[in-house]
């Protein structure tokens, strides 16, 4: 019987490992290199300075094409965010023109942004964006860092549950921003496409958005594409998951409570069951019950 079982087991293992011919899946892209993120791990928190730098990149580069519709100016002053003061957030808002209305004359009008406004989109609608950008629609960036990922496959996805790897989105975004290279010989790039070694299919519609020294930093941080990519990816992780700091902080408290509470329950259980497991003769005098006899 053991032989039969072994044969069956081998069949299962073979069936699972045989499909190494991974056609469409494997063509997609290289795996993004893992980055160090301040917000990784159980005690991870956002680095406000990095979020401010990332915000600067978004504002000076990305926002030309990408909207950020779910984020309001007030969020810039939220705790666990870029750490702007309310006055600073108000000042940032005032630099944007927001469409409001209709007014008493029934007209839409432009006014400076207020802190309660959401980031105005660069194009009035998706059709306008497509018309201006050669038919391509740049995705909204609000939850982009959670909407992008890549497959690390078996068995990595099992380890990720233990290593708490949730930074696949920012890793991917950073990889895309730094992954523009010349296409390898023989790769036919479709018109309007750029070669990116981390993009699934390699032909990305977005032109290379960042180059070294493009955005000046005032805090001495190196102005390289690699650093820009990391900063803006961190910023986008914050826009996608603005409550991450609070979540991890509460999580630690909940974990401590649960471990202590479950530990107490364990000792209670041990105490209650002691007689059943070790002194079964003591249970003879238990009051009668109503068990239906078979």
């Amino acid at each position: 019987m053991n032989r039969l079982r072994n044969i069956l087991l081998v069949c299962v293992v073979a069936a699972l490992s045989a499909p190494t011919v991974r056609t469409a899946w494997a063509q997609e892209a290289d795996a993004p290199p893992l980055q160090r993120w301040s917000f990784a791990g159980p005690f991870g928190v956002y680095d406000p300075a990095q979020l401010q730098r990332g915000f600067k990149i978004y504002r000076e580069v990305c926002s030309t094409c990408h909207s950020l519709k779910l984020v309001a100016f007030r969020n810039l002053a939220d705790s666990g965010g870029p750490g702007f003061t309310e006055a600073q957030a108000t000042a940032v808002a005032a630099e944007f023109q927001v469409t409001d209305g209709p007014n008493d004359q029934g007209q839409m009008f432009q006014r400076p942004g207020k802190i309660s406004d959401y980031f105005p989109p660069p194009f009035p609608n998706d059709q306008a964006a497509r018309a201006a950008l050669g038919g391509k629609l740049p995705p909204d960036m609000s939850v982009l860092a959670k909407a992008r990922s890549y497959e690390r496959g078996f068995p990595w996805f099992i380890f990720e549950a233990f290593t708490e790897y949730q930074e696949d989105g920012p890793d991917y975004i950073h990889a895309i921003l730094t992954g523009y290279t010349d296409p390898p010989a023989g790769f036919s790039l479709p018109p309007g496409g750029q070669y990116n070694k981390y993009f699934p299919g390699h032909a990305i519609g977005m032109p290379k958005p960042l180059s070294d020294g493009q955005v000046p930093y005032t805090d001495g941080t190196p102005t390289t594409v690699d650093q820009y990519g990391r900063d803006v990816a961190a910023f986008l992780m914050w826009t996608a998951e603005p409550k991450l700091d609070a979540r991890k902080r509460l999580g630690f408290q909940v974990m401590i409570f649960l471990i202590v509470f479950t530990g107490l329950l364990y000792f209670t259980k041990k105490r209650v069951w002691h007689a059943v497991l070790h002194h079964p003769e003591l249970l003879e005098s238990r009051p009668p019950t109503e068990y239906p006899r078979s």
Partner: protein
Amino acid sequence: MSGHSIYKPQSPFMQWLERRLPIASLVHSSFIAYPTPRNLNYWWTFGGILTFMLGVQIITGVVLAMHYTPHVDHAFNSVETIMRDVDYGWLLRYVHANGASFFFVAVYAHIARGMYYGSYKDPREVLWILGVILFLLMVVTGFMGYVLPWGQMSFWAATVITNLFSAIPIFGNSIVTWLWGGFAVGNPTLNRFYSLHYLLPFVIAGVVVLHIWALHMVGQNNPTGVEPKTEKDTVAFTPYATVKDAFFVGLFCIVYAWFVFYIPNYLGHSDNYIPANPGQTPTHIVPEWYYLPFYAILRAIPDKLLGVIALAGSIILLAFLPWLDTSRVRSANYRPLYRQFLFLFFLVVIGLGYLGSQPPEGGYVIAARILTLYYFVYLLIILPLLGLFETTKPLPNSISESVLREGVPAGASAPPPAGAKS
């Protein structure tokens, strides 16, 4: 819930109430004095865990419903509003979304335990069938819940799954149109899914009452599969089962909290953070992990109608386990052959789960076909035949005997009880 209760109301009020509505004695006989086999292991705590999870899902779900907007133009953003602007909205949503996964973790453990220890056998057939109905209700409820955030996976999962009904001959397309409330998955679909997603948990709660009622009629099975015969074979539900269940709910919650607080999006698919777009099909449409084995069975079969039949059959067949399994011995502990085939069955289901997550091409399809074949061969051929040909190990005469045969732990002063004869 049957027979007399030993509950004696003490206070005048409780005596007054007892004569009018004997609810206190019902609770007493069901959850305090109710005898449970003394040899239950921790696999028996998943029933309590499932009840706990149903409560968690209903409470978080009701609050989420206060903030959610079931409209194709607003659903995605209303979920994001919950995540951003509702106080602890992120917590509610992550507890609810991961709660669905952990609900299924618990139900799969519960089902596996029932299969291993033969808990479906006479006289527990109705109890088992109610359990399969509960599982089906959970599958439907979970699926509809996954559609509500109206992301890409929500939309395309709804499209793919509702389209399965188009495989039904003659009426297929009419049924699909009827399910959608239109000619494509759209606002009417989202609205009815929302309505049903709110309704079904209460249907589940109702069937849970029946499930527990049936359980209390026949009593719990136990690792030996031998019915309790004397008082010594059982202990009172409270405090023994209560404290054991509570301890394991605590352990379960630690793992659950790990996911909620540290890897809340691990079990989800990143595409569901892209708003639904009927004009753009995702590269791979993948259901939630808990449906993957059944999804693999569906795709393993080249014909659409047969695939749907296999999918439905893979769950419905489970309801017939009491009759497919012909052995009179319940517990796999005493069935050496059954045990091996069953573990292989569990491995096959896990394997199907992996294959369901992979693209349906090349070796994956071949592997899925082999495993699907085993799934059905096991249920329809191996299981009935095993009962006829298998030589089982000798059963203990009673639960107490099996407990004492395993030995009184060292240092315990208990002599073998005089009445251990059965």
